[in-house]
């Protein structure tokens, strides 16, 4: 057995190194994303934000981390203890596990050439893996909410269930278009297909898919405006009402890990990954170019993260029926039509440029819904004008 390990060491060590990097970086990143989020929130709201601990408040995240680790381990009497403990860890495990198939930097096609920015490269069904694992992340929330044995928690869990099931469909369907165009489930292949000019990025071929994907991904991460499972105004803390201290941190880290994952996926699937026009293809190239590619990818990811953070302060939270309506009446039909369009174009061998025309889809949908809304307005008015309010009040 040991001899086998030695034999496969050249393949194994980059994977182990990548695992080490992920395990080391992700919690740290999670901590600092809270800091960035607080800072950005403060700036958006014309405040200063944390600025007391360390220069510019940089150690605030560390202080928070220390504080929350040292907090009392509170276990309410009424919880189902085993599940109560499993839920937050499961939440974080699934979030981290999704990073296994995630290239977080340029990946050379020649996998044995030293370190590559991926734990398990060359998995043909990479994107499917990603979906599969992230679909499991609902368990953390559901089990946590149920094990808390508290009505707010269970409401959070139920909402979370419904939200996950609903948004997983447009999420998967939006990716299908990209997959169909690329012809591969392999993320590296999808990125590779976007090398070359700016116009090779999937966002130009699949704008609707990008929109649907990003929206659904926000919903899957429970970020605003879709954070109904934990919305404070209605459910106290939602599924994590009964969680505090380190167990709460695990949920929290999972959420931020999801944000990172989603940002990476958006950048990889739609924004050209580590490619940028003018830069050489980093696959298999020198370290410098590799690093450049990494920087490009990270820049794109940061951009997406920033958008996610800013969206929180730009949009109000959805009502639950609006949330469901958006998924089932908006995103799923859009994604479906988009997918059909892609299928038609590919099967009939039509010119690829026709795909750009899918951008019209949302406008058509908007036109349809606006017309429908205005019509309902009209009918309301005719209805109302027919009936005068009883004992009409007169204003002199």
């Amino acid at each position: 057995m040991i001899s086998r390990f030695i034999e496969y060491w050249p393949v194994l060590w980059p994977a182990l190194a990548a695992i080490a990097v992920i395990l080391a970086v992700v919690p740290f990143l999670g901590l600092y994303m809270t800091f960035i989020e607080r800072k950005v929130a403060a700036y958006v709201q014309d405040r200063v934000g944390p600025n007391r601990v360390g220069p510019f408040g940089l150690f605030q995240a560390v202080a928070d981390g220390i504080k929350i680790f040292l907090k009392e381990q509170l276990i309410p009497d009424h919880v189902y203890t085993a599940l109560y403990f499993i839920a937050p860890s499961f939440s974080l495990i699934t979030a981290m596990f999704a990073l296994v198939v995630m290239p977080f930097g340029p990946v050379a096609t020649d996998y044995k050439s030293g370190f590559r920015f991926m734990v398990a490269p060359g998995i043909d069904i990479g994107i499917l893996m990603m979906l599969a694992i992230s679909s499991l992340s609902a368990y953390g929330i559901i089990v946590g909410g149920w094990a808390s044995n508290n009505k707010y928690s269970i409401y959070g869990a139920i909402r979370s269930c419904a939200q996950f099931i609903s948004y997983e469909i447009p999420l998967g369907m939006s990716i299908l278009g990209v997959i169909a165009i690329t012809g591969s489930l392999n993320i590296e292949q999808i990125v590779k297909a976007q090398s070359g000019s700016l116009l090779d990025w999937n966002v130009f071929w699949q704008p609707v898919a990008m929109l649907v994907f990003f929206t659904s991904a926000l919903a899957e991460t429970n970020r605003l405006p879709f954070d109904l499972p934990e919305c404070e105004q209605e459910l106290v803390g939602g599924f994590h009402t009964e969680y505090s201290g380190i167990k709460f941190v695990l949920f929290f880290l999972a959420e931020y890990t999801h944000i990172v994952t989603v940002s990476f996926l958006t950048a990889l699937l739609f924004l050209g990954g580590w490619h940028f026009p003018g830069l050489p293809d980093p696959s298999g190239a020198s370290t410098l170019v590799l690093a450049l590619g990494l920087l490009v990818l990270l820049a794109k990811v940061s951009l997406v993260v920033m958008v996610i953070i800013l969206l929180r302060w730009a949009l109000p939270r959805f009502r639950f029926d609006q949330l469901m309506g958006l998924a089932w009446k908006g995103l799923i039909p859009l994604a479906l039509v988009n997918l059909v369009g892609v299928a038609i174009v590919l099967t009939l061998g039509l010119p690829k440029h026709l795909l750009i025309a899918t951008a019209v889809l949302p406008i058509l949908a908007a036109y349809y819904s606006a017309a429908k809304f205005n019509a309902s307005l009209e009918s309301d008015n005719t209805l109302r004008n027919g009936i005068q309010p009883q004992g009409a009040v007169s204003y002199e």
Partner: protein
Amino acid sequence: MSESKPATSPKKKTVKWGQAPKLSVLDALYLPAIASGLATAVRHAVSGKPTTRQYPEVEPEIPPNYRGVHRLNRDEAGRVKCVACYMCQTACPANCIEIIAAPAPKDDPHWKDRDKFPATFTIDELRCIYCGMCEEACPVDAIELTSVYDLTGMTRQEMIFDKEKLLSVFDETVKSGRDPVRTNRGKLGPASEVAPTGKDAPPPPGRGKSG
């Protein structure tokens, strides 16, 4: 009045229904709205001037009628002005004042003109809601809420102020010139004030009335 008039009277206006605005295609698309929201957020993030006050460095200007920590006033002789009438304790809606009264030490010439004084006077500053009713109720203006707002303590016990601590608040606020403005310290309470005389005096009972 309106019944007598015909329903089509030009003066009479029927209630108008509120009307939702019509949706344009752009509105229904949501995206422009989201973009404008994002733009607002970014605009503030980039160019917004923070309105935060950096508290320990920049102290806020507390209005003089702010209701902060209590103090027990001293009279001219430096004794506690409180006469232990329990009015504040009675008025307190939060039940945070506790007084134990005692006869003033009659042998002490310092206390000769006083009958009753508070042996203990305790205010639980944590329980207090700073409503100012005690101040309102006090007939001798002995208890006042100062504008001292930065009240902190490391233990709960520390926040239960006894008579000495409340008197020391008086000493400190007098020294620092942060006297409250609502009551007139130094004067006796309204019950002990000299009655208005002459023209200001109210008419004597019975006069000016017939039989």
